[in-house]
């Protein structure tokens, strides 16, 4: 085969394959945010720092017991769930729109407060990690980070990203079923849709919100361990992941859990193809252009339902 033609095909195939895999990685970072921001309508600016916190937690565990990083999830998931649950129950519930109105303050405070509080929390977490671990670049050691599934001589899939993709899909399906089919899931959606009426229907909104937040942070914990396995991280890396997650949620659509996978994949493919054809400097720019485009043409995102 002609060499130019061969490389053209390799470039396109690589763009699609790497893009889809990158999308799975993005989706896993974004699912937690899609749940809090999309379903609960609350902006958690500490989302990225929660990821980094979970990654450090895994590092800590691995220092004492040399096990597979995937097994650390058995500890990371419940701990992060507890963090999310407690955060919502004892901090964020106290500054929600309803509790602000109960205190006689305007609802605007209730919309702003979580943003300010989680922003503060983000700084506190980053500095606590700096204090505890110093600013060394860390990575969660694992046997897979350099391995790949070779398709042809010049086409390959990163083993880790393939695993992330599968995990992202599994979490998405589980979460989707949970929200649609279970009582707790319906209660989460109900309290998000109308926080005034839900309690009248017998839903304990503070507990339900705490449950949703716990799930969101637990998923962020899974994402943190995955991210930590594939790249080095430092205490102040949180905002990077927050930005990625926001991008994915905007493209995929507010309130749509499935949207985060599609949003992630679109973002991934756009970036890799732009990088191939317009040089690596275009890679991230293309992602932002996609986000702007979606905001301009379909501000509710691709998969959001109109309300």
């Amino acid at each position: 085969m002609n060499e130019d033609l061969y490389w053209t095909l390799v470039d396109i195939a690589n763009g699609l394959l790497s893009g889809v895999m990158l999308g799975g990685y993005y989706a896993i970072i974004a699912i937690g945010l899609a749940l809090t921001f999309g379903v609960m309508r609350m902006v958690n600016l500490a989302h990225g720092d929660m990821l980094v916190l979970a990654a450090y937690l895994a590092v800590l565990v691995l220092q004492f017991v040399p096990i597979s990083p995937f097994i650390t999830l058995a500890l990371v998931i419940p701990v992060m769930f507890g963090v999310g649950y407690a955060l919502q129950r004892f901090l964020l519930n106290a500054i929600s729109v309803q509790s602000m109105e109960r205190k006689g303050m305007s609802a605007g405070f209730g919309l702003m407060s979580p943003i300010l509080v989680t922003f503060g929390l983000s700084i506190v977490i980053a500095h606590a990690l700096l204090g505890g671990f110093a600013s060394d670049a860390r990575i969660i050691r694992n046997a897979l980070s350099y391995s790949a599934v070779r398709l042809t001589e010049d086409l390959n899939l990163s083993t880790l990203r393939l695993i992330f993709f599968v995990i992202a899909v599994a979490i998405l399906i589980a979460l989707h079923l949970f929200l649609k089919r279970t009582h707790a899931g319906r209660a989460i959606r109900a309290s998000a849709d109308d926080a005034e009426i839900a309690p009248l229907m017998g839903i304990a909104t503070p507990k339900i919100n705490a449950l949703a937040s716990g799930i969101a942070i637990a998923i962020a914990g899974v994402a943190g361990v995955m991210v930590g396995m594939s790249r080095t991280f430092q205490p102040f890396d949180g905002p990077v992941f927050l930005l990625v997650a926001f991008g994915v949620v905007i493209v995929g659509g507010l309130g749509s859990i499935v949207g985060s996978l599609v949003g992630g994949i679109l973002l991934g493919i756009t970036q890799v193809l732009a990088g191939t054809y317009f040089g690596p400097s275009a890679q991230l720019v293309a992602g932002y252009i996609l986000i702007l485009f979606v905001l301009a043409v379909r501000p509710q995102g691709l998969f959001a339902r109109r309300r």
Partner: protein
Amino acid sequence: MRKELTSVLALAALAGSVAATAPAPAEAQDCSITVGRVVPLTGPLLDMGRETPWLDENKVGPINKAGGLAVGGKKCKINYKIYDSRGTMAGSGEAATRAILKDKVDVVFAQGTPDTTNAPSDLCERYKVPCITSNTPVEAWLFGPDGKPKTYKYTFHFFFGVPDLVANHVGMIKALPGGFNGSIGYLYPNDPDGVVFASLFDPTFKKAGWKPVDPGRFKQGLPDFSAIINKFKRGRVQVVTGVLAPPDLQNYLQQAAQAGFKPRMYIIDKATGYPEAMKALGEFGIDILSVNFWSPAYPGKSKYGGYTGQGLVDLYEGQNAGKYYSPPLAYTDASYDVLFDAMQRAGSTDRAKLLAALAKTDLETVVGQVKFNAQQFSVQPLGGAQWRVDSKTKRWVKDNVYNAVYPSVKKTADMRLYQAK
């Protein structure tokens, strides 16, 4: 602990002066000098401040214990104060301002990239305080934003220079074992280091007759390197060179390994300067080449410590189990030596006399001979570094594998091809 120590020292000094009553009783108390050290202790450049305060304690402690440094017939007590630059331009400016205006230190030391040396240098010029800086390439310290060399009167600088760096890297590529097909891949990001490196190296490589494969400048934190790697494969690249931060290098190396791309040589600066970052990188960091801006292979002996570079490293690693030396250890040691030597030659701590003496510095230190020129800098040697993991101790070791530019820096191993499996 340190407070107790100083009070004990003060008591000892007092006792000494009382006992010695006769000729000059108060003189021992008269002379003291305070050094304000601006160091990145937190933030992105933290690796460049790890010798603090061990080195200060170790350097100043014994001298003070002996009653002080002999300066013009007096015994001079050396104090030091440490200020965190947070690794940023703003943080280092703040730290130096605090040192100069609030604490009124006599001398400022600043170290570690333009972000932490340049603002203190400018402030020292403005407030006319003697200043010694290091660990920033000379040109990055010398040239102002207008591209013209600044005129320094109070600041003295010593580190390697850019022309030597270029000569070193070109020399290393020419020495590639088994010959070179001329195809060289660039990994220069779109940040100040990447842009400057590209503008320095690109014309030089082309002049050497090599064919660059340049994917262009990219933003730090690039998620996907597969397109770049395919370009390298397509261009049959044998040497990859660049200047990358640790997360980018990690990400790139993983994806290159996944794609089965293995050049014969990597010359990557920045992420490879410090052992902590190499440890995080793991086995794929082995055999990567970079500039060696200090290792115990450097020539020279400390006048006030009595040790060679190796001696200093042994002392540090012996007293800090499990830790690694890093180059600022040597440069800070040399900074103190330069100051002590100038004080002794000046015979006084008077500012004007001290500055005049600093300008005439010609001193052997653990980073080689320091001799300031009319523009108040001294160009130190450099070499070519290559990392390996010692098979017995399992510790990361930085070999000096290329020394054609400065033969005085010992060659400690032969250059190896990039081997990762």
